[in-house]
């Protein structure tokens, strides 16, 4: 069997997993695998912090008229929860997976710009620390202003609407830390996006055309382009907010002629593409995992890839459905309503692709597959409640209620986070050489599935009966206390599930079953090397003549490339 020799070794030796075990070998690393693992660990830490904040929220809301948290503190906690989960957990965790696996999946030695890769990661870490420093550093009390007394974390919500986020209404420096932290993270993410796009477009092994790359790589590529064009609106808005706050300028202050609506336009021009940034790589993971555990190639590869490109383009044309209540006029609302319903079509296509892949397959219900299947169900629920928001009258009724909270948690937690766990169970053996325990894994899955639905399903109903989001407490209306208590209990079940997961990771690292190179009998290139891969990734990359190079290798008599032309 002919094998394609790899590109020659780099002249400068790069620190790697096996060359040196000291802490410095990690901090100074420019190896994509080490940086990928550091991404995952850092975002796991932020996930735990954001999760604890969520528990505080749920404790406060467990019963009516509760006084566990003061109103100001509550505002800080929900702002930090949302900001953390979106900017410091979901987006960078997906980037971490991409950083680790994209070079392996395309048979490359490393990312296109290894040093830039390290910079992206460290900007994330220090941007996150800057944001969290607001709890101690942001609290200078200003005469007549709120904040101060309870510490200075930002409290204007994760989308930080002006003029609430402006000096007169947020006088502590929390919003400054918020903007600065996100700028740092945003610049790092932008660099990461450029790095990933160039890696995918330039470093693929010979034979791996864009029609043959794994779908995860396709999704990361589309995601990279969305990031590239969605982050500048955020950065521009953040810069303008900082200029307003620090230099007493007037961009978003209506009192001096500025426009608060402009903040909303700029923020959501980033914010809605951001929603797809947070789901596309997750779709990519699902598109890798479901075929492997169904023992069938993905159904309609071209449609999964093509519909993602459609989503990438459309994602910039739907953002104002976040602004239906602003009063921009019927033609404006109608256009964005139509575009928002339109984008559900390429999204729905993928659901059918995954179901058709499983149809007639020899399904293996590993923990990874369980999370993947649960993803399809929960994401579909979140997607459907999302389409309801595309209808302007329903949006007017439901906006800023718990129905919204339920909707985006079904998409982001039931969707992305479940996909991430599917990915963790699938790829942990490759990263560490040890399998995660399936027994612990099943416990983790079922606790998480039950806890998740307990927490968030009732929130649909709470929203429909009118409970507004972002209020620190609520009156004792019929059913509200009970439903909120159910939600709080669910949140603690979820927290316990996360503890089970961490236990699983620790126990499996300690005495897990050795994984071997390819424990799932998968077909993409990352499984062709050892677990964990050596610093240089591959001694030789197998020839790529179809979408499933390892299948071809294992079935020389009946390879994919012979059957499909």
């Amino acid at each position, binding site marked *: 069997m002919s094998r394609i020799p790899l590109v020659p070794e780099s002249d400068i030796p790069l620190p790697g997993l096996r060359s040196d075990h000291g802490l410095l070998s990690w901090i100074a690393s420019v190896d994509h695998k080490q940086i990928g693992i550091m991404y995952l660990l850092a975002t796991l830490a932020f996930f735990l912090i954001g999760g604890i904040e969520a528990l505080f929220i749920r404790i406060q809301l467990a019963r009516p008229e509760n006084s566990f948290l003061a109103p100001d503190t509550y505002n800080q906690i929900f702002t930090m929860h949302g900001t953390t989960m979106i900017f410091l957990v979901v987006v960078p965790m997906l980037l971490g997976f991409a950083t680790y696996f994209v070079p392996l999946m395309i048979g490359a030695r490393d990312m296109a710009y290894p040093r830039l890769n390290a910079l992206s990661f460290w900007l994330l870490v220090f941007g996150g620390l800057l944001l969290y420093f607001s709890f101690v550093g942001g609290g200078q009390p200003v005469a007549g202003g709120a904040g101060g007394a309870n510490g200075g974390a930002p409290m204007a919500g994760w989308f930080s609407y002006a003029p609430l986020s402006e000096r007169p209404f947020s006088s502590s420096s929390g919003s400054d830390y918020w903007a600065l932290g996100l700028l740092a993270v945003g610049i790092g993410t932008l660099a990461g996006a450029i790095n990933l796009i160039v890696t995918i477009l330039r470093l693929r092994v010979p034979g791996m055309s864009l029609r043959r790359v794994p779908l995860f790589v396709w999704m990361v590529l589309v995601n990279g382009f969305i990031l*590239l*064009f969605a982050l*500048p609106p955020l950065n521009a808005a953040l810069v303008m907010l900082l200029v307003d706050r620090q230099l007493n300028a*007037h961009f978003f202050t209506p009192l*001096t002629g500025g426009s608060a609506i402009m903040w909303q336009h700029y923020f959501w021009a980033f914010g809605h593409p951001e929603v797809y940034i947070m789901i596309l790589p997750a779709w990519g993971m699902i598109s890798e995992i479901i075929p492997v555990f169904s023992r069938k190639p993905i159904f309609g590869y071209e449609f999964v890839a093509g519909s993602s490109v459609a989503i990438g383009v459309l994602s910039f044309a739907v953002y104002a459905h976040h602004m239906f209540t602003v009063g921009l006029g019927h033609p404006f609302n109608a256009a964005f309503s139509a575009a928002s319903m339109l984008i559900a079509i390429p999204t729905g296509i993928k659901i059918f692709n995954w179901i058709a892949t499983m149809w007639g397959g020899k399904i293996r219900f590993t923990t990874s597959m369980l999370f993947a299947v649960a993803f399809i169900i929960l994401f579909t629920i979140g997607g459907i409640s999302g389409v309801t928001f595309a209808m302007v009258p329903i949006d007017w009724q439901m906006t800023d209620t718990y129905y919204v909270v339920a909707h985006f948690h079904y998409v982001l937690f039931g969707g992305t986070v479940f996909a991430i766990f599917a990915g963790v169970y699938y790829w942990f053996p490759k990263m560490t050489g040890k399998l995660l325990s399936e027994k612990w894994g099943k416990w983790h899955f079922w606790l998480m599935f039950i806890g998740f639905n307990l927490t968030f399903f009732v929130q649909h109903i709470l929203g429909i009966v009118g409970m507004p989001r972002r209020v620190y407490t609520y009156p004792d209306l019929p059913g509200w206390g009970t439903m909120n208590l159910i939600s709080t209990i669910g949140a603690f079940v979820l927290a316990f599930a996360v503890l089970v997961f961490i236990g699983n990771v620790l126990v499996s690292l300690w005495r897990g079953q050795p994984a071997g190179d390819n424990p799932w009998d998968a077909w993409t290139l990352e499984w062709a090397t050892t677990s964990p891969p050596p610093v240089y990734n591959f001694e030789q990359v197998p020839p790529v003549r179809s979408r499933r190079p390892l299948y071809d290798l294992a079935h020389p008599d009946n390879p994919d490339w012979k059957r499909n032309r």
Partner: protein
Amino acid sequence: MEKNKLGVLLLIGSEAIFFLLLIVAYVSFRNVDTGGPTAVSSLDPLVTGIFSLFLFSSSFTIWRAGKSLLQGRRAAFQGWLLATILLGLVFLAGQAYEWRSLFAQGATINTNLFGTTFFTLTGFHGLHVLAGLTALAIILGMGRAGVDFQTAHPAAVESLSLYWHFVDVVWVVIFGVVYVTLLV
């Protein structure tokens, strides 16, 4: 396409959106009059036009620098690079002069919306010029220290040149939107 050039092109695509939004902010507030200095009352298209010519012509000199490098004429390469840096510096000096005269008229970033949007837009462009000049100075320094770009960093000058053209084009747009519209 060479990977470093591709990376710079992607960066340029992203930066273009960033500047587009700053320009949109300038334009959308142009007709909001809350008193104080305005574009009409305080900007001088002629003077700015003159120092803009220095920036525009620097696109020519950096192109010559790249050509000379390809032809292996190192002295010419360094000369054109130096010319590019000097032209960029003159532009920045012109901008500093303009800002000073605006300050003298009482127009600052917090005076009114014109000041806010004008100084943010031109300030960020100036920062990008400064970043470009820094990179040019590094390339020039490396060239003088004897680095052979043709073999060691074949795409470096061309990538930087792409970025420099971009900074130039952004100024063409800003000059058109902010200054030329004052004349018609």
